[in-house]
């Protein structure tokens, strides 16, 4: 088995056993920062290698995906799940946005198999973080004057996650290759080890969602599994339509399937405080994240290859 996945399972088991194992916050923060910077830089390096032409359709496609996904999730949560309006809107926003940890697992999975992916994927990751937040706020309160959109934008764009991804992208883009070689040992060679440590902590955090899950029951579990499957289909189709490589299609499917557990919760806590944060975290962190990491990636690979065969006849 891939040790990276074993680290996640180990964290999950330790957490469920209520062990005292815990990563110091500073270590977890440091590890997350490294991942975000590295993912950004990997993207930036590739972008520098090829013409910038033709990225606009990809960006618009990713934007659209980020807008549509919460619109699919919202009525389901409201009608079937019988959640309050604000809670349905907040959960929907989580699923329209993306998870960088999940994306990192996807990258590691492709790297382990030597499958390349499209340079712009890191950029699309950034693009997909934001729109669902706006949709979520609109769903919750309409075009209410109360919403301080400037505030929301500041909170999201100046948040740690997007800053590091964009910063990494720009650094990767503008750096000379020899310069990059000198920082490769820290940012690139350690990538998978750092991801392992990150997943250990994610396992521990996932375990803390168990009690919320028990309380809020089966519907959230079902939603947390079905919604990513729906997302992965849409993501695959968009990837194929955009003509991405197989690796790129997988990553877009994974982005669509993943749910935010950092940027969106933080934005919702400030902009939509009436929404219960434990609901959305239980779903995105307690169900969807482990589902994607443990079994989702190969499923989406299979799915995207099947769809490719169907549509391209290849």
């Amino acid at each position, binding site marked *: 088995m891939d040790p990276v996945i074993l680290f996640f399972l180990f964290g999950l088991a330790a957490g469920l056993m209520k062990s005292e194992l*815990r990563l110091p*916050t500073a270590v*977890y*923060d440091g590890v997350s920062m490294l991942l975000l910077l590295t993912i950004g830089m990997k993207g930036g390096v590739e972008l520098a290698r090829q013409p910038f032409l033709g990225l606009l359709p990809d960006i618009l496609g990713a934007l659209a995906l980020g807008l549509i996904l919460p619109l699919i999730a919202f009525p389901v949560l409201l009608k079937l799940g019988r959640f309050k309006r604000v809670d349905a809107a907040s959960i929907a926003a989580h699923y329209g946005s993306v998870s960088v940890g999940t994306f990192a697992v996807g990258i590691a999975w492709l790297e382990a198999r030597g499958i390349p992916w499209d340079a712009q994927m890191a950029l699309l990751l950034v693009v997909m973080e934001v729109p669902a937040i706006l949709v979520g706020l609109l769903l919750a309160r309409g075009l209410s004057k109360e919403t301080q959109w400037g505030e929301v934008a500041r909170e999201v764009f100046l948040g740690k996650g997007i800053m590091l991804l964009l910063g990494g992208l720009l650094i990767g883009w503008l750096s000379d290759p020899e310069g990059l070689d000198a920082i490769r040992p820290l940012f690139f060679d350690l990538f998978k080890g750092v991801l392992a440590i990150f997943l250990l*902590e994610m396992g*521990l*955090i996932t375990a*803390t969602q168990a009690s919320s899950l028990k309380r809020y029951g089966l519907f959230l579990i079902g939603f947390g599994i079905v919604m990513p499957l729906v997302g992965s289909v849409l993501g695959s189709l968009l990837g194929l339509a955009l003509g991405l490589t197989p690796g790129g299609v997988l990553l877009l499917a994974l982005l669509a399937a993943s749910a935010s557990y*950092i940027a969106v*919760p*933080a934005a919702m*806590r*400030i902009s939509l*405080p*009436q929404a219960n*944060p*434990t609901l959305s*975290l239980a779903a995105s962190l307690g169900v969807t994240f482990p589902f994607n990491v443990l079994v989702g990636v190969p499923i989406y690979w299979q799915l995207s290859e099947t769809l490719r065969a169907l549509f391209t006849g290849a």
Partner: protein
Amino acid sequence: MSPESKPQIKLLTVITETALEHPLQRDLRTLGAKGYTISDARGKGSRGQRDADWEASGNIRLEVVGDEATVRRIAEHLQQRYYDNYAMIIWLSDVEVLRPGKFSTPSSS
């Protein structure tokens, strides 16, 4: 130290979610606090365990010293604005500040 010579100085202590650190700082500026002190904390209350295990689950401990009127105004504002939707507890106590001059709006400073 007779009550008529000095206005009562109060210490306001607020325990609440880390997510509110920036908004509270803005509020304090608007509401006329002369200063504040923040430290990190964790805890448990009516809204469950807040373990500081990860970013979103920690608390902060905010302290504001000031004359009674200002401090009560701040406390009431925070309660009204945040209490319903955030983990938060607020308490007041009497303190004696050395060089309290800067907190007594009427005469000095």
